[in-house]
């Protein structure tokens, strides 16, 4: 990855809504060059999607969501190892993130649902019924302190002197 590509990513990671003009001026390149760099990263799927970090606590009851971490132990398939099972699990719309992990369990899922029931139903009806899934452990998320490197309830910034030599 080139230095320019890294710079584009660092700008977009911090603010996905930054304009091409601002990217260009920050990097000291033309707008056309910046546009090309972004396009390239989008086309080769280095950038997969632009998304938003939301403070879930601010959502009201109707649109609020419940999240859970689910550890899953599976029996790998002879031919494809974990991949085949992973694909079956990852396709479920409730699954937000899905990782293969080391340790006592094999998969770590982050699952989202309208309420506890929806997640419980997902676990018992969808997940546990998948062949080769041996056991699961569900941890409901009670509070988010930090997401995507952002502190959710950041302390107010202390005031700095506005003028100093």
């Amino acid at each position, binding site marked *: 990855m080139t230095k320019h590509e890294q*710079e584009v990513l*660092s*700008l977009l990671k911090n*603010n996905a809504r*930054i304009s091409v003009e*601002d990217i260009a*001026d*920050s*990097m*000291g390149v033309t707008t056309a060059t910046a546009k090309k760099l972004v396009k390239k990263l989008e086309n080769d799927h280095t950038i997969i999607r632009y998304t938003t970090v939301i403070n879930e606590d601010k959502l009201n009851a109707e649109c609020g969501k419940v999240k859970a971490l689910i550890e899953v132990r599976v029996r790998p398939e002879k031919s494809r190892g974990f991949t085949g099972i992973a694909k079956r699990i990852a396709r479920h719309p409730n699954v937000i993130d899905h990782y293969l992990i080391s340790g006592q369990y094999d998969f770590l899922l982050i699952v989202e649902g309208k309420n506890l029931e929806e997640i419980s139903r997902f676990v018992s009806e969808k997940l546990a019924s998948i062949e080769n899934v041996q056991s699961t452990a569900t941890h409901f998320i009670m509070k988010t302190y930090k997401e995507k490197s952002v502190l959710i309830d950041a302390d107010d910034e202390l005031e*700095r*002197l*506005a*003028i*100093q*030599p």
Partner: protein
Amino acid sequence: MSIEFSRVLDQIPPSGIRKFFDLVIGSKDIISLGVGEPDFVTPWGIREEAIATLEQGATSYTANAGLLECREETVSYLKERFNLTYDAKTETMLTVGVSEGVDITMRALLNAGDEVIIPEPGYVCYHPLVTLAGGIPITLDTSGNHFIPDPKELEKLITPRTKALVLCSPNNPTGVVIPKETLEAIAALSKKYQFWVITDEIYAELNYEGYTSYASIPGVKDRTILLSGFSKAFAMTGWRLGYLCGPEALVSRTLKIHQYSALCAPIIAQYAAIEALKHNLKAVEEMRKSYLLRRNFFVKRLNDAGLPTPMPSGAFYTFSSIKHTGLSSEEFALNLLKKERVAVVPGNAFGACAEGYIRCCYATDMEKLKEAVLRIKRFIKGLQ
């Protein structure tokens, strides 16, 4: 008997930017480009180490020169990053920021009437501290040489009373980095005329096109005093910790003043600095990269807005000419603050030859920089 005050002190004019303080106090809508510090908080790892050390009860004095471990870490960092060789025990001491380092250096070096050459535009403390130490500040105007001290001009100012030259690279307020060839020419003069060079390298880590420390020029060590610290690189301005490196004969003398006037630098800051040097150089690099992007952005937009602004190679300041507006730098800054609520520092705070310029600090977030440029543009348009 007399209850008057020090006459030398009263000769020193009050700070030109004091009048701005009253205007900005309590105002929430001001975009401040007038600061002289990072917009980052000290990296958490450093703060956490300081908290843990405090919990363990590190609340005492340290050795006058500072904790040996902190000096040793400093010395190996200087070797690694800037190819400098100092002995931690005899050639290095910790100070209460670079400011104290400048003060005790001047007091250790100067006799009444000794001259110290100070390139201007330059940081505000050199002149007064030379005066307070009984010396005579001599200004080297760099405004005709892209704010780089010109060795030829420097040589013209040298007299039998010249005791020292102050260098500050990367420079506050201009952001200029002095090229290696210039440093070598200055080193040759220092050898020829036998004067000290006090090199303030507090912004050394914040360089964007390469950097040479004056102290690394071969053969200068016995006439060079290196001043630097943790404030800018590690975002630790409020911790008040700097260091002074130089020949043993000098350090033993600055230490003598320090033991009476400061005793030691704060112990918690020293422990925090050990952590900073051991485990946080990556954070310095991340911050540097972030300043670099903002520098490019801000300089481009200022020029687009009609303020001629050269690309600075270091620190986090831009130094823009406002001569075409017909205003003095102080009028410009005061009116900009009153009309558009943007705080900048007028050039004249950094020396008479900096009249016609303003200093902006781009260590603030990009959206604010963007808004500030819009306001500056509107302000300039309103002048026509």
